[in-house]
């Protein structure tokens, strides 16, 4: 990692006063985030807190109601479509499902952005694709179709596709969800290695505390549209916020109640068939 990456002021993604709603439901209510260049930043929180929405906002697929998101010094939502597309070529995104194109083989999926954006000769495309597939360990699976891949393999293939242009950053949307322990381990290792080897900036959105904490340099914890905690793993474990403690230690009850709001239990049972 070069000297520049260790500069604490070197922020790649700056989120300021971000608010976003879906219908009448507020997803974000004035949040601020800084994502350091060259680091792995985790954004954690329970399901439904809008973690994926945040990635879509950063990628410019959704527009905020209020606030600004700057990526590499450029306000994503003020860019023209062509400039936004240029910026996206330097952003990789790994979707939760992998989002591989189902009618193309693994090889063609990884080659897809290259063929769309460049006129490189086919021999060069082949070399490039094989290098990326080798990096994720799927060079031998190049001829398989997405339907023949396991969930973990699909995510690795999608990862190869996301890094095919050596982007400046990658956003991982729930990379560990629904994976067996071996696949989880492989993905943790890959995210960590890619970040080191390519000097990438990684944003990992997840609710898998242990896997994410193992690779994250900095963690933001979101809940109820706000940032409820932030810091390194050590700082968060020592946090005095009951909320952060519940989340980091996976306690079933706490500030986030186990029970969905309901009337009194005994009263409800005694009600005798009447709602």
């Amino acid at each position, binding site marked *: 990692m070069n000297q520049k990456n260790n500069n604490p002021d070197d922020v790649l993604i700056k989120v300021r006063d971000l608010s976003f709603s879906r219908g009448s439901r507020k997803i974000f209510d004035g949040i601020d985030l800084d994502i350091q260049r060259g680091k792995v930043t985790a954004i954690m929180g329970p399901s439904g807190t809008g973690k994926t929405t945040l990635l879509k906002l950063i990628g410019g*697929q959704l527009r905020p109601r209020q606030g600004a998101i700057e990526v590499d010094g450029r306000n994503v939502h003020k860019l023209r479509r062509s400039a936004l597309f240029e910026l*996206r*070529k330097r952003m*990789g995104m790994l979707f939760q*499902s992998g989002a591989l*194109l*189902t009618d193309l083989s693994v090889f063609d999926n990884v080659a897809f*952005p290259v063929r769309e*954006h460049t006129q490189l000769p086919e021999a060069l495309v082949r070399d490039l694709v094989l290098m990326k597939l080798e990096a994720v360990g799927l060079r031998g699976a190049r001829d398989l179709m997405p339907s023949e891949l396991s969930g973990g393999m699909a995510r690795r293939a999608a990862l190869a596709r996301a890094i095919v242009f050596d982007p400046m950053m990658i956003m991982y949307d729930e990379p560990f969800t629904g994976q067996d322990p071996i696949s989880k381990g492989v993905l943790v290792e890959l995210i960590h290695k890619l970040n080191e080897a390519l000097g990438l900036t990684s944003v990992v959105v997840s609710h898998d505390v242990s896997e994410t904490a193992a690779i994250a340099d900095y963690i933001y914890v979101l809940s109820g549209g706000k940032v409820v905690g932030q810091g390194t793993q050590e700082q968060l474990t020592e946090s005095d916020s009951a909320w952060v403690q519940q989340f980091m230690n996976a306690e079933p009850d706490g500030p986030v109640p186990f029970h969905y709001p309901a009337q009194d239990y005994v009263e409800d049972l005694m009600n005798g068939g009447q709602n």
Partner: protein
Amino acid sequence: MLWLRRLGRSGLNFFERLGRGHLFFFSILSGLPSLVPRGHLLMQQLFSVGVLSFLIILVAGLFVGMVLGLQGYNTLVDFGAEESLGVMVALSLVRELGPVVTALLFAGRAGSALTAEIGLMKATEQLSGMEMMAVDPVKRVIVPRFVAGMFSMPLLAAIFSAVGVMGGFVVGVGLLGVDDGAFWSQIQDRVDFYDDIVNGVIKSMVFGVVVTWIALFEGYDAVPTSEGVSRATTRTVVHASLAVLGLDFVLTALMFD
């Protein structure tokens, strides 16, 4: 007052969707030049939209023609005009039944498949994924399918009409004993190239554009869940069929007044 509020809301939803549909149509039109370097995608789509609809069109055309032969003969024979069976079958097919029935079958076969395909691509984040790779899904996915639909429909309608005439011939001349010279020569004499055939082709092109547009929009606008995609597929068939029948009336009034 509740019903008034509901009415207002569904009215707003309707116009909002109509607006989105038209914006979508304009984005397809502005994306048309992007098809030039992607000829292979058009070929693939011509296959899946056009060639795969071929069999149903062939069989339906044959039977519709045979039924026209039977029904037409029964009516015409009372007036001693069974010689005109050929021209009756040909005109019915070329002007009306060819474009309309083909468009209805096309909406059921190709339209529903397009909606389901695009809707599932949306539900599995493939379209979002493309956008994040800085590839415009309208240009890459929608435009080739649109152009394929636009060209396939008139060709399928022409095949439908041609096979239908053959069906009418088999029944009228083969089974019912109409003179085959009269059958063909009346067709040759009375079917006008511009008034009948060209107008029929224009009709089928319009239907092709409308059916494909509705199918693609429904898929692109679908709620990205399995229920949303199934609803969108149903809507494609219903809306496209109604649009075809409504437009057929308007076009017929304009063309054959």
